[in-house]
C-alpha cells in the first residue's frame, strides 16, 4: 500500500528507519487473503487530522536539534522492538495461519449461518483446494473459519448476561464466570477430540484450529435457543434448541465425514472393515457431543 500523503513532522524522521525495514505485510501477496479496501480518500482525512494537532507542539520540538535526535532514535528503537516481537510471537502463535481463518466476507458469513441452521439442502460438502492448500473461506463455503466461532462465543456471553439479568441473577462477575466456564469446556472438548483422533490413528489434515472452529459452530445454535427462550419462554427454548441441536448434529457429521473417513466410505458406499466402522463411530461421537454441550451450557440460563 502506498502512503503518499503522510505529511507532518514525523515523515522525514520515520523514513530513515522504515525504509530499511520494508513493509511488513506484502501488498502484492498472491494469495490475496484480504481485499485491499483502503481508498485514497481515507488517507487524506487521516493525514489531515494528524497534521493539525501535530503542527503546533511539533514546531516547538523541531527547532531543538537534540530532541530531533532523540525522536529519531526513539522511533527507530520502537520499530526495531516491534519487529523483534512480531518475529518471536510468530514462533509461538502462527499468526499467518490464523489470518487464513479470518479471511471472510459478509456473503460467506450469511451463507454459513444459514447452513448451520438448515444444512439439509446443501449437497456438496467438499473443501476446494488450490495447489494443496485449502482456499480461503471467502471463496468456499465449506471451509472452516474462526470468525463465526469467536463472534458466537462473545455473543453467547452477552446473551447469557442478558438472560441472567432478566431473572435478577446478574452481577458483573457472572460474565467472567460464564466466559471462563465455556472456554474451559471448549478446551476440554478439543483435547478430547484430539486424543481420540490420535488413538484411532486417523490420517487427516484436520489441524487443531480446525477443530476449534468446528467446536465453535455450536455457539450459533445456543444463541438461537437462548434468545428464543427469552422471547417465548421455556417452550420456545426447548423447541428451538431441539431444532438447532439436530441441525448442528447433521452439519457436524456431514463436514467431518469427509475429513475423517476414507474416500470410499465418505461417498456413502458401504465399506467393510473394523477401521472404517471405528472411524464412523468416532464421527458420530464427536457429533453427538455437540448437542450435549449445547444443552449443558444453556439450560441454567432459561428458567
Amino acid at each position, binding site marked *: 500500500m502506498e502512503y503518499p500523503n503522510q505529511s507532518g513532522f514525523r515523515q522525514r524522521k520515520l523514513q530513515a528507519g522504515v525504509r530499511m525495514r520494508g513493509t511488513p505485510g506484502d501488498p502484492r501477496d498472491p494469495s490475496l487473503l484480504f481485499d485491499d479496501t483502503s481508498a485514497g480518500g481515507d488517507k487524506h482525512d487521516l493525514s489531515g487530522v494528524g497534521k493539525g494537532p501535530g503542527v503546533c507542539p511539533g514546531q516547538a520540538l523541531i527547532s531543538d536539534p537534540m530532541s530531533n535526535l532523540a525522536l529519531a532514535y526513539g522511533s527507530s528503537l520502537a520499530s526495531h522492538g516491534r519487529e523483534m516481537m512480531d518475529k518471536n510471537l510468530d514462533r509461538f502463535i502462527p499468526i499467518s495461519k490464523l489470518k487464513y481463518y479470518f479471511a471472510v466476507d459478509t456473503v460467506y458469513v450469511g451463507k454459513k449461518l444459514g447452513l448451520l441452521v438448515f444444512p439439509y439442502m446443501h449437497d456438496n460438502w467438499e473443501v476446494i483446494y488450490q495447489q494443496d492448500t485449502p482456499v480461503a473461506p471467502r471463496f468456499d463455503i465449506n471451509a472452516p473459519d474462526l470468525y463465526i466461532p469467536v463472534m458466537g462465543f462473545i455473543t453467547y456471553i452477552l446473551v447469557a448476561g442478558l438472560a441472567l439479568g432478566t431473572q435478577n441473577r446478574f452481577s458483573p462477575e457472572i460474565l467472567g*464466570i460464564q466466559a471462563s466456564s465455556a472456554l474451559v469446556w471448549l478446551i476440554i472438548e478439543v483435547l478430547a477430540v484430539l486424543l481420540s483422533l*490420535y*488413538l*484411532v490413528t486417523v490420517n487427516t489434515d484436520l489441524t487443531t484450529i480446525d477443530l476449534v472452529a468446528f467446536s465453535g459452530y455450536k455457539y450459533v445454535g445456543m444463541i438461537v435457543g437462548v434468545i428464543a427462550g427469552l422471547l417465548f419462554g421455556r417452550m420456545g427454548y426447548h423447541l428451538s434448541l431441539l431444532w438447532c441441536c439436530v441441525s448442528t448434529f447433521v452439519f457436524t457429521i456431514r463436514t467431518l465425514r469427509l475429513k475423517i473417513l476414507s474416500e470410499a466410505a465418505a461417498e456413502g458406499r458401504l465399506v467393510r472393515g473394523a*477401521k472404517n466402522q471405528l472411524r464412523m463411530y468416532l464421527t458420530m461421537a464427536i457429533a453427538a457431543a455437540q448437542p450435549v454441550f449445547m444443552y449443558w451450557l444453556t439450560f441454567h440460563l432459561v428458567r
Partner: protein
Amino acid sequence: MAFTLYALIQTAILFTNAIAVLHEERFLSKIGWGAEQSIGGFGDEPGIKAQLLNLIRSVRTVMRVPLIAVNSVCIVLLLLFG
C-alpha cells in the same frame, strides 16, 4: 458447573502426574501394558491399545523433567498462599 481456567490447569497437572507415576516394571508389565509387549508388527497400523501404551510411555519420557519444575512451583505457591 462453573469451571475456571485455574481448575483446568489443576486438572491437567494432576492428570499428567498420574500418568507419570505409573511405574514401568512394577505395575505396567504386571497388567500386560508394558513397553516391550506393545512393539508388535511394524506392517499394519497399531490398534488402540498399542497407541495408548505408546502415549503413556511418551508422556512419561517427555514430561518427567518439566513436571519436576511445575510441581515445585505448585508446592511453593500452595505453601505461601494456602
